[in-house]
């Protein structure tokens, strides 16, 4: 190649994406909530819940809804709301950097509930989506949804349009955690 054909000569740098960087730091986690049942007039949800005493802020990197097969459905994203029903805690959670010793343990909990009655209370309904049967929704948020200790990021599934149909699905999250700045 002749050099004189191109006089561009910018410095080159290698970019480490922020999700890789946070994983290298042992701050990045992924988790799955399965067998979320809703329909028949009920709802289901899965949330990243940041405990009051966690000492970290939650940064939501990405979320996915998969395997809702039988109906179109409503998706509502709620921030910092009280979710209905009795939550269970998913054990299908892991640090994405499994070479980091000791193995990082998330402070944020992946909570979920099925066949709940009623709506979330308080907080903000941040945005909504419509889901089509059999079509996964995968959304990368780049960490821009940030929840403090005591806050949460929840995906709420319902199907009031066809309340005679039962449905189920799965919700997947990726997130990182950063220590809150001291008082």
């Amino acid at each position, binding site marked *: 190649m002749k050099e004189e054909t191109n006089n561009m000569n910018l410095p080159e740098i*290698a970019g480490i994406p922020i*999700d890789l960087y946070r994983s290298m730091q042992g701050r990045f986690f*992924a988790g799955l909530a399965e067998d979320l049942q809703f329909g028949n007039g009920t709802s289901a949800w899965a949330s990243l819940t940041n405990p009051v005493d966690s000492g970290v802020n939650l940064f939501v990197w990405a979320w*996915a809804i*998969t*395997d809702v097969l039988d109906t179109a459905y409503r998706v509502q994203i709620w921030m910092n709301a009280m979710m209905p029903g009795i939550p269970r805690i998913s054990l*299908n959670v892991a640090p994405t950097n499994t070479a980091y010793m000791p193995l990082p343990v998330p402070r944020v909990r992946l909570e979920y509930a099925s066949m709940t009655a009623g709506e979330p209370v308080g907080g903000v309904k941040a945005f909504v989506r419509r889901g089509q049967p059999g079509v*996964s929704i995968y959304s990368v948020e780049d960490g821009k949804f940030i929840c403090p200790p005591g806050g949460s990021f929840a995906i709420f599934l319902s199907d009031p349009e066809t309340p005679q149909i039962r449905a189920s699905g*799965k919700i*997947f999250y990726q997130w990182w955690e950063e220590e809150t700045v001291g008082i």
Partner: protein
Amino acid sequence: MSGSFLPPEFAILPVALYKSLQGKYFVGYADNLTASPGKNAWAGLFNPVGSGVILYVNVITVTNVMGIPFAGEFWFNALFPGPGTPTRSELYTPSNTAIRPLPEPKVAILELSEASPVDPSVGTKIYSQLVAEESTVVFEEKGKYIFPEGGSLVVRLNEIASETIGRVAFGWWEEPCS
């Protein structure tokens, strides 16, 4: 606009390109994984004990060749029960083929067809979704799934309803352990 406030310009090399330039990036796949109803199949990236490298998984694809959906599951650091002996896939290459000698990966792709449907006793299932007939699902993780010597990322084909053929492909890089 005043030029004095313009930030400097850089050409940004994506991390996968940067690793490929160094001969650290590899791609490979497990072809024709088969499973009958009541069985499953899996293929994974295994970082051997003593490899001297850490495994960074960048891309995972799961392909369903046949006419019925199956569940594609991602497992971190799981031990899958027998019977059956996994085989090593020979279908891999460095992504940079301009380097001499060609780099050889330390990480191996192991695969097992017609495997036991029993869940592994250790390890974490961090993802699962149905893979529709005659389709491929692609996950680009930018290397943030990281595994030490002795670690693994396995994709299991599960919930097999009829004779199933799947393909699982990976893109990854390897860095020396410090």
